[in-house]
């Protein structure tokens, strides 16, 4: 076999250690990962309401938030780049598994929520947008995701339908949206809107969910969560028995976001037992 020159060997020896991520890189990706999974879990919950898939994704996002974001706390604290960690950790400890999907938010919003939650006697168990950073604004924008398949994997197993089981969806205490309207981060407001859609769907009010989605589409236009709203609208239409309309929208969805992680759920929205 052709061997490399000593100069090349030396250069490669150095290069091996030159591509590792920096602490800040890891912290940034950690936050975005947790957020992206959390949103996917939210929409998955809206999508199938009470499916194992939703449970799995919700549990996963919880694990990610608990695992990855907690990792972020350590990493970011070391880098001195992320505040509000102590608050976040204490809330995560208090919240039930499977219900906690949240990322840190501005202190003022936290205080309002804490007060309201205490008054309601309800646990803090919901999803919120992270503080405004340019890196986090596009966490839910999946239009650039390549659809990739690991080598040696078969379609057959990928297409296995997921059986339905009952799970409890985390429910946010009502009335939270107005307070979030005051938040500085537009993504927070948009995420709150999506969560309201999810709650409405979980309460069986698909028609109202559709109206909310239409209002939010008008309000946010092609916002960061346009894809999640589009998916939610398809699930709502299926719930209302408007399958033809849902399928038309599903085709549009697939054309617009061909590599979306939600695509398999969108495809079988009106027929959960169907394969991808």
């Amino acid at each position, binding site marked *: 076999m052709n061997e490399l020159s000593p100069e090349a060997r030396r250069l490669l020896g150095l*290069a091996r250690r030159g*591509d590792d991520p920096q602490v800040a890189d890891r912290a940034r990706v950690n936050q975005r990962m947790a957020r992206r999974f959390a949103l996917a879990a939210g929409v998955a919950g809206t999508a199938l309401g009470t499916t194992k898939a939703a449970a799995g994704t919700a549990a996963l996002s919880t694990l990610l938030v608990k695992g990855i974001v907690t990792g972020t706390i350590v990493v970011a604290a070391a880098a001195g780049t992320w505040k509000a960690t102590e608050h976040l950790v204490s809330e995560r400890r208090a919240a039930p598994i499977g219900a906690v999907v949240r990322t840190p938010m501005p202190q003022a919003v936290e205080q309002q929520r804490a007060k309201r939650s205490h008054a309601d006697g309800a646990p803090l168990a919901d999803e919120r947008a992270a503080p405004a950073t340019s890196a986090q604004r596009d966490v839910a924008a999946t239009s650039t995701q390549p659809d990739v398949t*690991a080598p040696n994997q078969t379609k057959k197993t990928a297409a296995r339908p997921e059986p339905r089981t009952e799970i409890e969806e985390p429910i946010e205490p009502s009335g939270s949206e107005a307070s979030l309207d005051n938040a500085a981060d537009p993504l927070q407001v948009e995420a709150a809107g999506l969560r309201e859609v999810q709650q409405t769907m979980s309460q069986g009010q698909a028609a109202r969910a559709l109206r909310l989605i239409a209002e939010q589409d008008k309000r946010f236009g092609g916002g960061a969560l346009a894809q999640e709203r589009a998916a939610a609208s398809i699930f709502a239409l299926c719930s209302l028995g408007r399958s033809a309309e849902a399928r038309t929208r599903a085709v549009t969805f697939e054309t617009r976001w061909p590599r979306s992680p939600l695509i398999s759920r969108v495809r079988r929205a009106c027929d959960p037992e169907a394969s991808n």
Partner: protein
Amino acid sequence: MEQQARRIEHDARGLDPSHPGSSPLDLPALYTQHFELVWRNLRRLGVPEASLDDAVQDVFLVLHRRAAEFLGQSNIKTWIVGIVLRVAHDYRRSQARHSARVALYAEHYRDTVPADCPAEQVELKEAAALVRQIIAHFDDEEQNVFVLVELEELSLREVAESTGLSLSTCQRRLTAARKAFDAALRRVDDPSRKRANP
């Protein structure tokens, strides 16, 4: 059979199968353990700096989606590397179609080593940047095999598993890539050769 597959999988992952929280593939654990592997290889394989964050997330999203399919046929590292190769390929292809202006700007910005960076770190980063620059001109298969063998230090058998190529093909690609790398390095060291033989 299923039990055996799970045991192999856990062996490969170095995780405790008896742990109550252990799912067939524990994504947070995978993420924690393999984040750096994914990051550095996406970078080496030519994913633009501006897209690295997204590409890393995509790899783990794919891992999540495909978790049920991992039955221990390969070890977890080569399975992840296989996904990294596909994601990197898609990003490179996407970059070729897309205007690279923003990516180039970000690349330039990120590759600028901070003034307070320790001298040793500067040397490592510059070496890595030079290697990336050279191998960016290799074809996909040569680049993949070279990165995995020479930088990630995988065995040829592992590379064959990750890439889906045969061992002999991996061997040929590696030989060709090494030859090209040495030649490119000589041109870098001797700019007159570069002018004479671009």
